[in-house]
């Protein structure tokens, strides 16, 4: 079961951390960071191979199929490592693309980690127009004209109940014509929404925590007044 919340006409945020554009038959994900484990190992840290390209790709395919999407758009940071790509990383990205399947189109908007190009999929620098939406990587600093879907920030929010128990979740952020997706990668670090809001356009932002296919609106509003 995949839950979703519609934040604008034709734009739904899903419980798997994607944006679903039903009219465009497309899903958008951000900050996949394929190759994170490899990069960790190169820096002396050990992470077991849980999110290899093939595994992540299969997950993305399943999400696409569940939403009858024919197109997957990555809003930046498909790769993790910012070094020149090597054979291992290339192999993982190709595994990723293969797992998505030839029947689903793959678009990659380049992010700051995607140095040297996308390697797989159709690559776009800057912004990709999809129907009435703009897909980019880094959020805009002023309110845009068209609805913009992006990533880069890896937002996380802490929710708490009356006994003081709290849990921290990746979340999507929605503001005026801007939707920031949670990081698709399980490994990638995140930042608290409280800290992030200062790098976003002035105004109110809603945070939607995401967990195991469930996305909820708990009336979490954060904002920044003009200083």
């Amino acid at each position, binding site marked *: 079961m995949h839950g979703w919340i519609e934040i604008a006409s034709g734009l739904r945020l899903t419980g798997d951390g994607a944006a679903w554009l039903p009219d465009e038959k497309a899903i958008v994900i951000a900050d996949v960071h394929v190759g994170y484990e490899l990069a960790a190992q190169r820096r002396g840290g050990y992470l077991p191979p*849980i999110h290899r390209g093939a595994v992540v790709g299969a997950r993305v395919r399943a999400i696409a199929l569940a939403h009858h999407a024919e197109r997957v758009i990555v809003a930046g940071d498909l790769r993790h490592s910012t070094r020149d790509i090597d054979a291992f990383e290339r192999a993982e990205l190709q595994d990723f693309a293969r797992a998505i399947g030839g029947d689903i189109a793959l678009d990659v908007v380049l992010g700051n980690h995607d140095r040297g190009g996308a390697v797989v999929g159709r690559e776009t620098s800057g912004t990709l127009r999809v129907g009435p939406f703009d897909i980019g990587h880094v959020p805009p600093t002023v309110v845009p004209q068209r609805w913009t879907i992006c990533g880069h920030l890896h937002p996380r929010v802490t929710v708490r109940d009356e006994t003081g*128990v709290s*849990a921290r979740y990746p979340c999507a952020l929605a503001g005026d014509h801007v939707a920031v997706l949670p990081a698709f990668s399980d490994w990638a670090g995140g930042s608290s929404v409280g800290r992030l809001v200062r790098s976003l356009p002035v105004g109110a932002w809603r945070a939607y925590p995401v967990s195991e296919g469930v996305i909820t609106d708990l009336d979490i509003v954060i904002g920044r007044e003009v200083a």
Partner: protein
Amino acid sequence: MRRALGLLTPAVRAWVTDTFGVLTPPQTAAIPAIHAGEHVLISAPTGTGKTLAAFLAVLSELVTAHQTGSLGEGVQAVYISPLRALGADVQRNLERPLAEICARLGVGCGMGDDDTAPIRVAQRTGDTTPAERRRLITCPPHVLVTTPESLAIMLSTASMTPHFRTVRWVIVDEVHALAGSKRGVHLALSLERLGAAAASDPVRVGLSATVAPLDEVARWLCGTRRTPRIVSWRAPRDAVFTVQSALAGEVVPNPQRVQRAVTQAVAARVTSDRTTLVFTNTRGATERLAHRLRERFPEHDVAAHHSSLAREERLDVEERLRAGTLRVVVTSTSLELGIDIGTVDEVILVSSPRDVTRALQRIGRSGHRIDRHPRGRFIGTGVDDLLECLVVSDRCRAGELDPVRVPVAPLDVLAQQLVGMAAVARWRDDDAYALVRRAASYATLSRADFDAVLDYLADTSETMEERRVYAKLVRENGAFEARGRSVATIFYQNVGTIAGGASVRIKPRGASAPIGTVEEDFLEQLRPGDRFLLGGRVWAFMYAQGMTAFVAPATGRPSVPRWASEILPATPGVAWGVGAMRARLRDAFVIGGVEGVAELLADRYEMAAPDTTALAEYVATQHALSPVPDPDEVVIERWTDPDDPRVVVHAVTSPLGRRANDALARAVASRLGKGSVGLMVDDQAFALRVPRRAAWTEDTLARLFDPRDLRADVRAAVARSDLWGRRFRAVASIGLMLVKNYHGRSKFVGAMQMNARRIWSVLERERPDFPLVRETYRTVLDDDLDVPTAVAWLERAAGRVTMRDLEGPPPFLFRLVAAGTTDSMLLEERDAFLRRLWEQAVAASGVGAGVAVAVGVAG
């Protein structure tokens, strides 16, 4: 004694009789045993000449060998101490005697630069310079003085290992401080490695302050294949313990009063003693007190000493201590003072030291003159603390020590040492397994666990060999070795078992200096406005910039749990003592009212009014509101949270020590089955904050407090809190999974350290059998928490569980409640938690008005 003296070679014997006249009792017992080649554990109070005992025996053998021309090259004796301040202790016990003995023999003595001296001593510690280290290799000393970490490094240095072939004695000092920790297990493995590197099994000599149980400690020292002689000696003259109250008639004295009492105690000593030694329990308390004493005694040199001091500062304080110019030293760790501090007639302990062994070790720093007893003065800084001081002093007098426990087969330490072993040699799996199992801690290590650790280090889950970027080892044909030369470097740079976490500075806005630090992952979960405790005050979080968080002073109770990781726990024995003391005071009250209690305190503890009255009224008020239970009864007191009527606080009085109460609280919470629970834990009690709809009923009590399956329930419970995640970071560091230093610290490594908690949540879900996941569970369940004490208590209670409803928290629980929630547990899955919060929000506000009704199904 004559026999022992007779066993010493003449030059050494003459030095002893000229310098001291006599041997101390521990020396008399130890020297013959060492001479006979027996393994020995010497347990005796500080100041009884243990260290000298070991060195005298060894020096005697070395001098004899030199005189008969049979003293070869290579290290003969290794002396290991956990202290960072090795200098003065070694100087007094080894270097000076050696110099004087050599002078009698008419030979040059071998410290410092004299490589031609017949008997040479040298040190290798974290402070040793590269030049000094190189000299160790080219001109190895006969006596090598080192620390556990430096020993491990040397055992993994190819140019050093040949020098260990000739080792005949291994002396381990401060055994009581090592045996019960992972650091001790790490050293035990190093001792086995050293044994394997030596041509014949060296004699092991362990030096320990008074400690229990001696067999456990002896087993730690000697492993499974050797039996040591145990030399245990207790001073016949009693130490004198005084308990002083800083209450001045108030149950909760204000901090100024406490400071005044401490200052007066110091003033009484500062002119007569060369050095006045003051112990506190935390770094923060040390700094504040030192500051206050500096102001009060500007004419004297006052300093603070603790493990977080920069190296230069630390050495400077020690130098001033040695020179006798430092009149007052305030410290929180007795360990660091392995220094001769001259005449200290009385040691001052501010607040209960929580542990009898620690108390005796601290007090043992005093009374080293022949005609003096060790003297300790405890200053109780609050009513509960005062009771605990009384208990600790009673237990010190009776010699009731708290037992040391050796951690069982920690897999993170094993992983680190296997890498160290591989750094210098190729090992057959069977041989390495056999070596490891000689250490007592690993006697029960299964071959499967051993292989799992090797598989992790060799990354065998990755089928493509070239792809094994992480791998430290290569496994093939039943053997393993290092994968590349950088493995040794990684080991050297990451040796050890002390894992530090990233710290965030807390600064009030506008202040110039931070008021303290919190852990990085504590900060991660804060939202603006959240209130937490630091340094005894409540602060509201505003925002963070990098590694600094800005706060504003706040009122009211803390709103987020504040992990009390830096607070020392009371031992079960001490905690139980407080429970028993409260019951005795209750009995005195029941019989004789407030006067009865006051009389008891005056007679037994020489306490005076108005403190006796204050304590008596404390007991009286409690007993009137809610009768004081016996320590072995399970009594639950509950009340509606005054700040939030939706919450009912259920508190259990359990005098078991914080570690056992933490285990018990989590198990009981887990047995509630659903929802979420806030936990409050201290040494005397624990409490659960439970939503009113989940309040306990009489029928559920038996199930909640059933001793059966407690460990399993604790394990399930810990999985639902943040406790694992925090502990995982330390385990991952020790096990070289997230190394602290990798070819110069990279930002990525730093980021991974900070993300340890999240890495844990993924790892634990996907790879629950991963060795370091299992080690995290073991560390928390067996080392951090105390399940056996909790089980024993519930079994004793055997169903005597009662519950009372109160209007609010009773006096005995004020301290627990004031500290705020220490942790919280989610008893449901993370997505279910979100769903529940949403349902509550909908119910509270009604549909509409800002709550989106939005969970649809995509077909």
